[in-house]
Each structure stands twice: as C-alpha cells, then as structure tokens.
C-alpha cells in the first residue's frame, strides 16, 4: 500500500485550521440489499422485478461487487462564522443554504469518498460490447456503493462526537441550495487527492462514483428535529427519494 494511503488520524499539517483529518484507505460497506439496488434501477419502492429479471440483475451485481474499492477522507473544522446563506470553515467560505441547514453544528466535517474507477471501467466495457443492461446494473451498483461508502466513512466521523451530540444529514454541492461550484471550496478543505479523488474543471469528480459533502456535529436534540434532505428537493417522483 502506498505510504500516503496509510490510515492516519492526526492534526493536519496541510490544512492547519482543521481540528482533525483522517484518510481511510479501506472502508467496509454494509451488505447490499437487492431491493435497495432495484430502486437505483428505477423500480418503485413497492415493486420489484419479476424473478427472471431479478436473477439476471443478481448475476451482474455479484460480478460488479468484486470491483469496488471504497475509501475516503475527511477533515473536521470548527465553524468560524455563518449566515443563513454561508458557512465559514477556517478561512474558506462556502455559499448556499448550508449555513441555515447546519445552523446547530459548532463543528463541520468536510468529506469525500469514492469506490474507485474500476466499477466505471467495467460498466464502460460492458456498454462498448453492446451489453447496455449489464452496464446499467454495474452503474447502479457503483451509485449504491458510493452512498454506502459515505455511510461507512460517517462511522469514523462519529468518533469525534462529544456526549449528547449527533451527526446531521449530509449535504453535497449541487443539491439543497449549495451550488455545484462550491465543490472547489470543499476540495481546499480536505485531502481528497490522497484517496485518488480529483476535481475536474466542470466540477465533476473523478472517479465518477465519488461523493463529497459536509456533515455537521451538533447537539442531539437539534439533530432529531431534522427532516430528510429530500423534503427540500422538488423532484417528488425521484426513485431514491427518502
């Protein structure tokens, strides 16, 4: 394993304003629930594919899962200042409704996770050979796994909670009133490159199956009153709406 990927929990020297920064070179994903994957494929919550199709999907899923390389990085910052439409961590100001959503958090973790480029290459190869069905299922496995990697990384972030604290919901650029352009600010605040996540000029992350975002560390009683971020989104017909 390359030196820079060895797991470290330390005062970060590159980003001194951070309270703590950690690189997690391997994340353990929760087991894949087929019905959850079916939702990524567009099946409704109350409906599943017929048995022959479910079996076809399961075969591709088994192959795709072998290609996942989940890993991540985060850094925890004290909130320097905030307004309803901005949040300042260290010297970096992030614009958007995030200031409002994280109003109860006195510390915020900036994070990035990825499941690696391998799953996207596998999907691409299938598509090139004309097997669009497998390509679609592989892509869905990658999307599911990226979310599962974020869930797994949160277990590490949780270790920094104090008594009577809880993590807030996660918020990502491009959603919930935070412009995708804010992605570059997030990347200044953590070592995403150490786990191989790069930001392209279009603000798209490479590998494709990566997630970046913010999560607050806040008093339990404030967090328990949070609603799903999906309540803020107008796409009511979204298959993965929570």
């Amino acid at each position, binding site marked *: 394993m390359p030196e820079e990927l060895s797991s470290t929990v330390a005062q970060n020297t590159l980003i001194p304003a951070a309270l703590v920064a950690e690189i997690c070179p391997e994340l353990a994903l929760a087991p894949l629930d087929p019905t959850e994957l079916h939702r990524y494929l567009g099946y409704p919550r109350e409906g599943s594919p017929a048995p022959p199709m479910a079996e076809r999907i399961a075969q591709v899923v088994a192959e795709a899962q072998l290609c996942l390389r989940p890993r991540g990085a985060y850094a925890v910052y004290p909130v320097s200042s905030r307004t309803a439409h901005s949040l300042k961590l260290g010297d970096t100001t992030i614009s958007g409704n995030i200031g409002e959503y994280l109003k109860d958090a006195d510390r915020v973790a900036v994070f990035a996770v990825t499941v690696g480029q391998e799953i996207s290459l596998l999907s691409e190869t299938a598509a090139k050979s004309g097997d669009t069905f497998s390509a679609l299922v592989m892509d869905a496995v990658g999307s599911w796994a990226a979310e599962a990697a974020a869930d797994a990384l949160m277990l590490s972030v949780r270790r920094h909670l104090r008594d009577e604290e809880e993590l807030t919901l996660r918020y990502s650029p*491009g959603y919930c009133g935070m412009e995708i352009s804010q992605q570059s600010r997030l990347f200044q605040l953590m070592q995403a490159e150490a786990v191989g996540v790069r930001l392209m000029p279009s603000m798209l992350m490479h590998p494709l199956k990566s997630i970046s975002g913010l999560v607050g560390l806040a008093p339990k009683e404030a967090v328990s009153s949070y609603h799903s971020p999906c309540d803020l989104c107008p796409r009511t017909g979204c298959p993965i709406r929570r």
Partner: protein
Amino acid sequence: MTIPMQDLSALRQAVIEGDVPASVTAARAALEGGVQPVDLISQGISPAMAEVGKLFEEGEYFVPELLMAARATKEIFVILRPLLAQAGSKPMAHVVLGTVQGDLHDIGKNLVAAMLEGGGFEVTDLGVDVPPEIFIAAVKKRPVQIVGLSALLTTTMPAMKATIEAFRAAGIREQIKIMVGGAPVTSKYAETIGADGYSETAAASVDLARRLLEVC
C-alpha cells in the same frame, strides 16, 4: 408475401420478454420459413417494441426490461441488415451519439444508443468527453442523419451549445438533425441552443429520431 401475424407470435413474445437467444432463434426460424425481412420488422419487431413501450408507459416495465427487449431487437437487426441490403432496401438512418466535452456520464447516452439500435437505427457512439471536432469528424467521415448530444451537469450543458456552434462554423449544421438530452436539459434549453429536438427519456428518443427524419 404477407405472413399471418400468429406466425410471428413466438418472436414477438421473445422480444417482449427480453429473451435474446429465443428472439434470435425465432427470427431465424421465421426467415427460414419464408418470412420476408420487411414483414419480420413490420409484423414482428415493430408490434413487439410497441407493446414493450406500452408496458413501460403503464409502469409495468422499467428500464432494465426495456434494455433487454432492445438488445433482443438489435441482435435480430444484425441478421436482417445484410438481407435488407441484398433486397435493395434503403439503409437505416445513421445516428452519431456522444456525451459532450467535460462530462463523463454515459449511462443515459448508452440507454439512448440501445433504444435506437433496437428501433433499427445504426448508431455510432463516440463515448464521453467528446470535443466538438470529434463530432464534426464523425459527420464528415460518412453520411449521418442525426447527431445526439448528452450532458448530465448544468456545468457541462453549455458544451452542447458550443458543439452546435462548431457544426455551424464548419458549414455542416444544415446536413444533420441534432437532438439533445440529459437530466438538466429541457425542451426550452434545446430550443435556446438551436437543437432540433429534445427527448426526456431514452424510450422517447426513438420516436423523436423518427420524427426528425420525417422532416429531413
């Protein structure tokens, strides 16, 4: 020769169920039994895909079922294409597809490619992050009737406009129809950037491509 519809019921059923080997076997059997390629399309493939589209619209079928049916149809067209050429039929329309420069998302574009191939179109897929000059080179290389541009991000949508402008600058914009799609794209945006058509779903892109060709 007109073949009674029931002779092709096994083929239609296989396509509807997305059973690729059974579809190919049924198509070969029908051709060996004397069914003409054009009849196999009009009375086998077309009604089967219409049924698949109906099941999708009704919420019985979802994208995976759609893709399997399109795959079955594509494999039948592989058999039919040389036979149609032999019979002097007009070649199928050629569509060039790609995800525009700066964007790496390819699933939506792949779905469109699969559905168009299932609909009998010949598709050249240029992949992702395709700069305008590659689109232009593909159109200059051999006859193309339709160019499809895909983008998934608000930050990469402007590359669609840039690509259309590059076609204009190269003097070949009028030779082709341009259709666009992707999550953030709307019909209004398509109109604004000077595209000829917009499709919200991969399933609807086949109808859109057919409509665009009617006015070619």
